[in-house]
Structures are given as C-alpha cells and as structure tokens.
C-alpha cells in the first residue's frame, strides 16, 4: 500500500489502512461524529508524520506524560509520542502487531513487568519502525515504567534527551518549578532541531489548546446526562487526543466533534444503549484498548454504559493564560501537573487517584465502579487496598480485575466479560432492585 505516494513499513500500512477503513465505515453513519473525528485525526497525524519524514523536517519524540504544546512552539517541528504505533495498532490496526513488538522487546531483555506500551515502543525502535528523532523531550510521569522506557530508548537511539522533572505534588511551587524547566528546554529544542522557538507561535498553540480544552469540558458535562447520549468507547480515546493533538487545530476539531455529537443526541433524546441504559459504571485506571468492541458488547449485552473513565476526564482546572511568556509556561505546567489524564491521577499521593474516582462516580451517577487494573500500573495496584476501602466507605460497589491494556494475552476478553456480567448479576442488580 502506498501512503502519501510511498511504500511504508508493514506495521504502518496496517494502521493506516485500519484508520482509512474505519473512516469509510463511520462516514456512512451520521451518528458517529466523535469516532469519525478521532479516527480521521489519527490518519491526519500519520500523514503529518510521513510528510515530515519525507521533507526531512525535525522530529521530536515525547512520552504520554508530556503535552506537546512547547514542542509545537518551534516552526515545522513534528511531534511524535513514543506510544504512537501501539496506540494506533490497538485502536485502529491489528493488535497482533503490538504483541509482536512486545515480544521483540522482551527478547531483547526488557523485563516482562514493564508496561506493554513501553515494551512495544522499545520493540518499534528495535524493528526500526520509528523515524529517528532529532531529540527527545520526556516527562517522568505517569509512572516508573515510562522511566524504564525512556532509558532504554535513549540508549538505543543515542539521541539527545532532556527530562522534565515532574515533582510529587502539584501546587503553585511545583508549577513554577516545572515552568522553569520548560524555559530551559527551549534552547535544548532549538539546538537539536535547528528551528527557532517563537513566543507568538507558542501563544497560538496555547490558544488552540485552550479551545480544545473548552470543548472537552463541555463534553465532560454533557456526558453526565442520563441517559448517556454517546457510546462508551469515546471516553477511552480522549487521552490519545490530548497527547497527540494538544495545541493542534485537529485536536479542537476532534473535541468539537465529541461535544457536538453529545449535544445533538441529547437534544434528540437519544441514548447510547438501544432499549435504554440499565446500568452506569465509572471505568477506572486504564481502558481496554485492544478491543473497543468490548464497549459495544457492554452496551448491547448488559445495557451498561460507561459515561466517564479516567482517560476521558478533563479536570476543570484553569486554561493556559496566554498573556505573557511566563503565564504560558506556567499554564502549560499546570496542565501537565493537574489536568493530563494519568499524570494527574497516577503521580503524587493516592488521594489524587481515589478522589477523582469518587468525584466521577458521584458526578456521573455511577451504579458501580470498574477498576480495570492494568498489570503494569504498580502505582494503581499498590493503592488497591486504600481504593477499596474508600469505595466501601462511599457505598460504591467496586469490581476489580487485572488485565493488560495493550496485550490481550494476559486476561482474555471472555474472562473480563464474565467478571462484569457476574458482578452486575450478583451485586449491582440486587442492589438496584432493593433501592
């Protein structure tokens, strides 16, 4: 297959074809603005990346703890999250390709307990699937597995790398600390990309990022509606939107599609579940990315909807104040510390993690919670006892299981389906009936 007139490596062809197929599918369905928006965005991202490669433009890698606005402040520089291929493969491509990358990394000596998305990123580099970066800008969040990946990728590529140290807490002192590091990152980025950073351009990027944020906040509000107007799986995709598209007009277009779809469906009185929703749950920790149809199954078989999850939640913190260079750097730091899903909840004390969950359960009127414990998230699994206690105290039934969000071999889909179906039957339904 030719992408932008050139033959690309097979893994990329698979995801490109997958995205194209889904665009065709959703195009026929006027009810799928949101899905159509994000899948279209994925393909455009690939187009942009391939174009940058073909034009020899600089490429900067970053990780999922890093919102890319600062890098976009340099004209003509292409951003590339190290998780890109895995996310695309799981969401729109073929998960077997991800599995192969995971195996490649493990065979090369990366410990099995490292997160599968991080292993797959190492696998992608080992298989020479990623374009060489001019430099890499990483954040030490959301977890240690990212640190492992960052270290492996730096050793494998031997390219310049700069770490933004994201501290434990996220108060004003921490915001200033991170903002100061962003300022120091600018000359690093300029030196290694050969491009100038422009404050004016950065301002436009931040304004774009704010526009996206506003749509996402509206969208978060709209999804509180009962019945939930839109399909569950959309919430799982929001983090991919933020990591890949923050500061890009395509991000705003996707967020607007999410918002518009929810708004229009509410106006038409539509529910995401045919026959009407029976149960609502907050899905917490990590979504099931290797089988988005799983969400359809929950809706059709169990009449269960996920109005919100951790990846979809856009915390209502301040927008980036674009009045001065300092206010922009601080605004971006605040976003990285307090808003970006995962970074917000997974770092710092466990209260960050638990409080958001309880808030979501209450705001979205959840009948129960699903703690989908991605096996690599030791920060989450290490807090499970306290999490359970907090759920019990709040009177919210909690289903807990462990699985791998990128690797279907760890817990088969049937087992997760059984867990949820039984939990509803044994716990949630009797409780609702008694209420």
């Amino acid at each position, binding site marked *: 297959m030719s992408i932008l007139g050139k033959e690309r490596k097979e893994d990329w062809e698979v995801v490109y074809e997958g995205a194209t197929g889904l665009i065709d599918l959703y195009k026929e369905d006027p009810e799928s603005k949101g899905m159509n928006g994000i899948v279209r965005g994925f393909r455009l991202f690939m187009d942009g990346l391939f174009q940058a490669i073909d034009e020899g433009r600089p490429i900067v890698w970053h990780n999922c703890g890093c919102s890319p606005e600062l890098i976009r402040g340099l004209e003509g520089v292409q951003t590339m999250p190290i998780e890109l291929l895995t996310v695309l493969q799981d969401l729109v491509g073929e998960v077997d390709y991800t599995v192969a990358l995971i195996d490649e990394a493990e065979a*090369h*000596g*990366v*410990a099995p*307990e*490292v997160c599968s998305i991080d292993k797959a990123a*190492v696998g992608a580099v080992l298989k020479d699937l990623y374009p060489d970066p001019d430099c890499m800008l*990483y954040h*030490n969040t959301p*977890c*240690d*597995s990212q*640190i*492992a*990946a*960052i*270290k*492996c990728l*730096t*050793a494998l590529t031997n390219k310049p*790398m*700069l*770490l933004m*140290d994201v*501290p*434990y*807490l996220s108060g004003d002192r*921490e915001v200033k*600390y991170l903002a100061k*590091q962003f300022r*120091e990152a600018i000359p690093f980025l300029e030196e290694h990309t050969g491009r100038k950073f422009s404050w004016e351009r950065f301002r436009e990027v931040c304004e774009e990022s704010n526009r996206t944020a506003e749509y996402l906040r509206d969208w978060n509000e709209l999804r509180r509606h009962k019945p939930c107007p839109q399909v569950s799986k959309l919430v799982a995709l929001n983090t991919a939107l933020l990591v890949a598209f923050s500061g890009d007009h395509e991000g705003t277009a996707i967020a607007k599609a999410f918002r518009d779809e929810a708004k229009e469906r509410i106006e038409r009185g539509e529910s995401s579940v045919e026959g009407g929703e029976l149960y609502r749950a907050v899905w917490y920790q990590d979504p099931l990315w290797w089988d988005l149809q799983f969400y359809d199954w929950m809706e059709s078989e169990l009449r269960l909807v996920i109005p919100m999850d951790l990846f979809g939640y856009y915390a209502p913190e301040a927008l980036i104040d674009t009045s001065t260079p300092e206010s922009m750097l601080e605004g971006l730091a605040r976003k990285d510390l307090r808003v970006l899903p995962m970074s917000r909840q997974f*770092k*710092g*004390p*466990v*209260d960050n993690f638990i409080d958001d969950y309880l808030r979501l359960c209450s705001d979205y009127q959840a009948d129960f919670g699903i703690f989908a*414990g991605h*096996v*690599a998230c*030791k*920060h989450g*699994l*290490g*807090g*499970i*006892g*306290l999490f359970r206690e907090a759920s019990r105290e709040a009177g919210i039934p909690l289903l807990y299981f*462990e699985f791998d969000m990128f690797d279907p071999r760890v817990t088969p889909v049937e087992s997760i389906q059984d867990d949820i179906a039984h939990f509803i039957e044994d716990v949630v339904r009797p409780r609702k009936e008694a209420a």
Partner: protein
Amino acid sequence: MGKSEVLKTFQEVIEGPRNVYLDEWVRAGGKVMGYYCSYIPEEIFTAAGFLPYRIRGAGSEDSSDGDAYMSARVCTFVRHTISLALRGEFDFLDGVVLLQNCDHIRRAGDLFVKKVKLPFYSMLSVPRAPKERLFDWYLSELKRLKAEIEAHFGLTITDQKLEEAITLHNATRERIQRLYEMRKKDAPPITGEEALTVTIAAHLMPRDQFNASMDNLLADLENARVGDSYRARVIIIGGELDNPEYIAGIEQQGALSVAEVVCFGQRSFGELIPSGADDPLERIARHKFFQVPCARMVECFDDQVSVLKTTVREFSADGIIFQRMKFCDPWAGDGHNLYWRMKEEGIPFLGLEREYLVPSSGQVKTRVQAFLEQMGK
C-alpha cells in the same frame, strides 16, 4: 573484639526490625527516624538528635498484611516492609521520611500516612535527574524537611549540629572506604556476605557505636584472608539488597563478591562530604544528589557505567552480577541497558531477578555456575 565477634554483633543487629543498640537508644529516651532511601540524608536526623534507621523487611515472616493493601505486582521488599509497619513492628519510630523513588514506595508512603500513622511523616520530591539545573529544588526539599522536623519536634537543627553530623557520618564513610580498600587485595579479608552485613548494620545502629566496632573489625582484618578458594571475583550491583544470605548463595558457587554497588552497600556511603565554610546543608545535599546515581535517575547512564568500569578495574573483578527485585521498573530499564553496554565493554555480566528475603534459589546457583563457566573460571 576480633572479626568473628564483630561480625556476630552485626549479624544480630540486622536480623530483624529491632536490635540491642536501638533498644538501648530508645530506652534512654532517644528518638528514631525511619527512612527508605539513599537520597535521604541521615545527617539531618543525626543533627536533630535522632537515630537514623533505614527501613528494611528483615524479620518479616510473611507479607500478608501488606498483601491486603497491595497487589502481588508490587515488589516484595515494599510489601514486607509495609507488613512490618502495619503490624506495629516499627512502633519505635518517631517518624518516617520517604521520597517518591518509585511507584511502589510512593504507595508505601500512603499506607504510612493512612494506616501506620507514626507521629511524623514527610515525603520528599527528589528530582529524577542528577543535574545541576535541578539541584536547587532538591536543596529546597531538604530545607523543607529540616523545617518540618524543627517545627514538629520543637527543636533547632543548627549549622553546628549539621557539621557534627557530617563529621560523624564521614567517620563511617572513611571506615567503609578502608574496608573496601582491603577488598581490592588478591585475597580479600572478608566475603561479600560479611561485608554486606557490615554495611547494613551501619544503617540500623548509632553511628558512634558502629564506628567503634568498625575500628576493631578493621584492625583484625589487616591479617585476615578469605579469598583464596574462590574461582572468580565479581561485583554485585543493582538496587535494594539487604540480604547477605543471597550473596552467600552466590559465593558458595565460587564467585566471591568483592564490592556491592547496591542500596545498603557501598552506594549508600560514597566519598566524604567535604568540609568548608559554606552552608553545611548544601554540602550534604550535593553529596547525596550527585552520588553514584541509582536507576530512578535519568540522564546519567554513562556516569553509572563509568563508576562500574572503575569498580571492576580497581577491584580486579572478573564480572558483574546484576540483581533486580521482581516488578521493579526503575531497575528494569537499567537491567536492559547494562546488559548491552557491558557486552560492548567486554565485561561479563549476569542479570538475576529475585524476591525479597528469599535466599539464592537453586536456579540462581545454576546460573552463577554457568556464568563462571562462561568466564572460563
């Protein structure tokens, strides 16, 4: 006291959470501050008049109390230590200081706050790259810790007290350095199992008493030799390792450990903190922040490698044994990188995975034997 008596004393010190020196200290009304990691300066606690006590899981029969709060995918070091804490076996502590050195310890911190509830708790945010641009933040965290201790306990940590603490801890460093110097000999006077016992004990008892015992030990070691019957010399590297029995298992196969570049080993001591007219807290901070970096640190892999190469050379080691706790992500990245870098450098390298408190398994022994064969030993 000769070598065997001193080592016997140290063995008793490291057996479980409590030891006679600690009990004596507590009986005399002394305060004890627990801490987890090499990036937390003990000097601050000493200057506050506390006994610094580095938390371990020794003496934990099982990790069931920790398991009730943490998934089995959390490393067993953390689950054992938190089990002891939840059972009240660290009740002699007046407080605990942690840092976000890894995701597992962070969650241990939450349990200390919400369940163990010692009178004092502080969590430091230590930057994850030992770079000058981040040093001010680290120093400000230490200042915050100092102020918190002063406020909570109603005391003042003067510069004079900090200087005295530097002197006391430097005296330990100097003794550990002498011990390690002796291990460079053709026939070292002490095994790795014994040396790790010594360095662990330093973390658990009053330093003046430790230093005095070390003087006896060092005097006796002048003429000792244990290294004749070994097939190879290795250095043992990695993170958490406070189980001398584990090293014993390796040494029984014929691989003598001549240096342990691990937490609780040489990495916790390093060079002396220089004297000078400038702020003692800043000198302490520099020493800790720029110590031989651990795997939680980024942008410093070449420094780590260069330390290892120097250690291999100076201690005439034939190879490196890297040990990592299962589920430990920080050391997973380094495990991968070290394997390939050591291959490039031509330094024989064996990577092992372990669980806390478990002596070397049969599999470890077989792998060590194979490693020796591979090195032609």
